């Protein structure tokens, strides 16, 4: 089968985001961008499925501006066979992204969509579930283990208080949690090779999908700052302050 891996270009997770002075959003100009960490895990899982012989082809897809090509080159350097860029400069919500991905799925006919559980910029945790709903496919969200076997996927899912195991009939959508695997690094030779792998660009407008936003951003603000605390010298002083000052201990 073919595995489709949606990847998102986001502000690097090591960067402390700064809210724009006019409250319109978060500064992204001149900020280091990388592949969303959960997407790296989803891609790694797809590559492992190919290495185990469960998949024949891994296709990375990204939706966004021309610069999202870099993210796709990274995906191919990690091992994706080819890539598709759905090009648009519009701000997209998960619902719109899911609809564009649905169009790609209908064209590519993958047996599995492996994607991250959430993007670390909008922290939405919704695109995989919406895509599964649109396709009428089963979903295995927050996956910590995936076993593909005879037309189905046995997925261990991280839930409150433990792990739940579900069996999904393929095709399915799986969203990767942190513990699913440790993604590989792209080696220099593979980065060079990735430059020659096919990257197809499709204009989002050509897909005839309604991507108009449903949400209007009223404002973006800094969260309230915490007041600076004090350094105590001893356990005794700490316990004393927790009792008398903070009043959180009896």
């Amino acid at each position, binding site marked *: 089968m073919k595995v489709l891996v949606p990847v998102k270009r986001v502000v690097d997770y090591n960067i402390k985001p700064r809210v724009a002075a006019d409250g319109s959003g978060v500064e992204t100009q001149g900020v280091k961008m990388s592949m969303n960490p959960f997407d790296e895990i989803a891609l790694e899982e797809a590559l492992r499925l190919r290495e185990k012989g469960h998949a024949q082809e891994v296709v990375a897809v990204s939706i966004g501006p021309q610069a999202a090509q870099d993210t796709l080159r990274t995906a191919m350097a990690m091992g994706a066979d080819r890539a598709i860029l759905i090009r648009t400069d519009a701000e997209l919500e998960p619902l719109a992204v899911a609809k564009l991905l649905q169009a790609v799925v209908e064209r590519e006919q993958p047996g599995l969509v492996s994607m991250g559980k959430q993007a670390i910029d909008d922290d939405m945790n919704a695109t995989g579930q919406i895509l599964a709903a649109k396709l009428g496919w089963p979903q295995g969200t927050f996956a910590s283990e995936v076993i593909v076997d005879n037309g189905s996927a046995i997925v261990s899912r991280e*839930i409150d208080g433990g792990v739940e195991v579900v069996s999904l009939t393929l095709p399915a959508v799986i969203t990767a949690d942190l513990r699913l695997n440790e993604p590989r690094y792209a080696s220099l030779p593979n980065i060079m090779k990735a430059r020659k792998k096919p990257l197809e660009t499709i204009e989002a407008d050509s897909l005839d999908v309604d991507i108009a936003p*449903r949400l209007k951003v009223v404002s973006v603000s800094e969260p309230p700052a915490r007041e600076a605390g004090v350094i*105590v010298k001893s356990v005794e002083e700490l316990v004393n302050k927790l009792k008398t000052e903070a009043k959180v201990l009896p």
Partner: protein
Amino acid sequence: MTALVLIEIEQGQVRQASRSAIAAASHFGDVDVLLFGEGVDAASALSGVRKVLHVPAAPHLLAEPTAAFIAQHAEAYSHILSPASATGKNVLPRVAGLLDVQPLTDVIEIKGDDTFVRPIYAGNALVTVQSADRIKVLTIRSSNFDPVDATGGSAAVEVLDLPAEDEKSRFVRVELSNSDRPELEVARVIISGGKGVKDARNFETLLAPVADKLDAAIGASRAAVDAGFAPNEMQVGQTGKIVAPELYIAVGLSGALQHLAGMKDSRTIVAINIDPDAPIFKVADYGLVGDLFEVMPELAKAL
């Protein structure tokens, strides 16, 4: 306007996170709750609930049949909510997909029927958004809403048919980790260990005695979980549990962005760390620079 809240039962009781979601839903008018499986008495006794929609069977809340069922009944409601629990996060975006609306997850404040605040970028920014969708689908960050009372209500119960089994998805098993301690999301006090705790045994010998004295839940940083010191469900952070207890004691953890996203709304934060430059001290109300292997036994004794 009427809101529908998907609730969850644990050990015969309605989970506190579900009661917080009901409190959030009450901003919109009447509240009906949807219950799958057992616990109808507890659901009916909830304060501030108009009606319980009860589906007696189907205890596993698999996303496919649960979302299909909610979508079928959605047109009677202006808002559909759940806590941002593992179940809520799994099911509600799928409901939104079926209804062709954009869900809003992890809502921390309700400013009006269509205007909501949610954190983005690991809690480093708050965005206020206005939704144009006909039905609003929301998951609620429970630590930001005081739960409704578990008792005092007497809501009517309407029994509904089990949704047809979706054969594309099948429950296999669940493995819960047993703990006598309070749940992380509801604990008044949390004591969390990081990589500095060094191994799993030290969580028991150093953190547990303090937790016992304070009736605290024990949490962990992602680094501690990844290193195998603690199971995943103990993880506090952007990718784990979001908590806001009265007292949060961070032991041997540096305070990475992704961890802070999960605990920086705690009322009082205490940091115990040997590195005076650890970022955790920037958010801590009280910091103690010292070796946790000496400090923790002392703390257990002092309490």
